[in-house]
């Protein structure tokens, strides 16, 4: 399950005001032997400096644009450096670097271009039931609108090949990017697989997570996106 040494893989971490968690997240990723690029999305709390001293490459947005915009920047950064595999990874400490190998391995094993992490196929730690139902409803909505057969539509832990990443062009700057990625995967006709991963919820990550109101804004964002070119 380990990465072949010649693989040019980048782990993209979008971060906004994550000073409390970013150093540990980068340390977890780099200790597992992966290269990390942190896209600091205009943080004002020292996130960028902490990420850099923890060993990540750093890209800094001059202003706050949103997680979707930061992920797209990170993907373009990795592609420009010849990445053959790109992993997206949350900055709030919910993900474990130990899951990355399984995702990347699945790309090769299934000859797929996207390996999407699923907490509902895997494990969750300290997940509130309200969050569970919200995510299940979001996944149902995504299945209905994209036709993709997935169990977890808002999991930020995913791996993609260079070809897959080239098909991703995020224009939803904020939280609706997770749905947008799935729409673009569906329209690319490239192969995807879902892989079990573990999500650890903490008081910190829950405070940063999405609410029912955010879910409504995501639906409005997706609708608004369809109204203009």
């Amino acid at each position, binding site marked *: 399950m380990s990465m072949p040494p010649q693989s040019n893989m980048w782990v993209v971490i979008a971060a906004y005001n994550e000073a409390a968690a970013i150093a540990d997240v980068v340390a977890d990723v780099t200790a597992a032997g992966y290269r990390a690029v942190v896209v600091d999305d205009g943080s004002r709390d020292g996130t960028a400096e902490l990420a850099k001293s923890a060993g990540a490459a*750093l*890209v*800094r947005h001059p202003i706050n644009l949103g997680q979707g915009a930061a992920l797209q920047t990170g993907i373009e950064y990795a592609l420009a450096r010849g990445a053959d595999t790109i992993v997206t990874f949350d900055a709030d400490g919910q993900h474990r670097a130990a899951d990355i190998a399984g995702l990347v391995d699945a790309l090769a094993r299934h000859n797929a271009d996207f390996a999407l992490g699923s907490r509902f196929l895997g494990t969750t730690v300290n997940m509130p039931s309200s969050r569970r139902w919200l995510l299940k409803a979001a996944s149902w909505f995504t299945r209905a609108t994209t036709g993709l057969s997935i169990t977890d539509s808002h999991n930020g832990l995913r791996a993609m090949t260079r070809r897959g990443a080239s098909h991703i062009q995020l224009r939803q700057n904020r939280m609706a990017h997770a749905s947008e990625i799935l729409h673009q995967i569906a329209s690319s006709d490239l192969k995807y697989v879902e892989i079990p991963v573990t999500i650890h919820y903490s008081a910190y990550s829950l405070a940063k997570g999405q609410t029912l109101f955010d879910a409504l804004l995501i639906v409005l964002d997706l609708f608004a996106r369809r109204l203009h070119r």
Partner: protein
Amino acid sequence: MIAQLFLTAMLCAVMLYASTTYRQAPVIGLIAVIAACWGLYFVWLPSHATQLAALVGIGRGVDLILYVWVVISLIMLLNLHLKLRAQMELITRLARKIALAEASQEK
């Protein structure tokens, strides 16, 4: 008559605005043009507005015209929102280019 001419001028301005919008947001442009056409029709044939208002249970024709005007205003508001989104996309591209260029210089 003065009110009719004034409203006609306003609705023609709306149609002009809607036609310039059509390329960026076809759905919004189309709805705005249709709403403005209905508005013009009712302004010049208010008796028809009264008949239609009675048919749909609104009461007076003038109320119907008011509702059409509210709809047009909401559509223009939505269009403004969409234009702001388009501006944000341009800002995002610019900011990304700056961020990636600076990251390359640091290497």
